[in-house]
């Protein structure tokens, strides 16, 4: 097995195992930690696909930011009160079957797809490429994102401190 294949299967195991645990654990904290494992696996796959910048931002933004928020909210709402409640829908086998069929169908579709030979990236380093494209070709989205973040600050602060 080549080194690349070995790491691909290792990261795939992390991603799939974490995702499966994340949707089947009863406790919300356990689900969040499993989701973290899954996101780490996907981050490793980004590394295999030469997307170093996304690897770092996956860890900083997703694992260090978004999942942290999730854990905060899980701790803010009362965990113990919800412990005895039903965590899964009564008709969960139906949903699982439907999505399993869809997933297998897509997997077969992709395994049959003939992708043209891949092109190579310009040889200047991933972060430099991202920087040039982001700051020149995607200039307007870059600035609009700051507006989005402004709206997110205002909205979430207003919602979260309504008690007073």
């Amino acid at each position: 097995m080549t080194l690349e294949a070995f790491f691909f299967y290792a990261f795939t195991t992390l991603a799939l195992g974490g995702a499966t645990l994340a949707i089947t654990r009863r406790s919300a904290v356990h689900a969040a930690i499993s989701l973290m494992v899954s996101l780490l696996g996907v981050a490793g796959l980004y590394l295999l696909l030469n997307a170093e910048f996304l690897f770092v931002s996956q860890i900083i933004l997703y694992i260090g930011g978004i999942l942290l928020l999730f854990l905060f909210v899980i701790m803010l709402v009362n965990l113990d009160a919800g412990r005895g409640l039903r965590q899964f829908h009564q008709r969960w086998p139906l949903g699982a079957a439907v999505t399993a069929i869809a997933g297998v169908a897509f997997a077969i579709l992709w395994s049959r797809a003939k992708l043209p030979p891949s092109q190579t990236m310009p040889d200047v380093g991933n972060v430099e490429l991202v920087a040039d494209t982001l700051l020149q070709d995607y200039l307007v989205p870059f600035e609009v994102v700051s507006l989005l973040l402004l709206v997110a600050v205002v909205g979430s602060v207003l919602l979260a401190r309504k008690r007073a």
Partner: protein
Amino acid sequence: MTHLLPPEFFTATVPLNAYLILSAILFAIGACGFMFRKNIITIYMCIELMLNAVNLSFVTFSYQFGKVDGQIYSFFVMVVAAAEAAVGLAIILTIFRNRGTLQIDEIDTLKN
């Protein structure tokens, strides 16, 4: 050890299709959880899982085409997910404060 396995086993590289298949399966797992979880927070986590699966196929296509645009898209998806998580979780907190529950089928004011 070497004679137990076919020689291709040691030289095979991973085709890009494998990444796309993984992305499809991850998306299916996320959608599955979205359907059968009852707690709003865990449902929300399943949405993040689906976003992540889509990001993976964006990055795969970016690698395939030798262009960095796909990576930029998934970067924007991450940023939007962060903004969405901040506001969405604040909404979840407000719901919890007003209703005292996070079970998805007890929050049905619009239905009645």
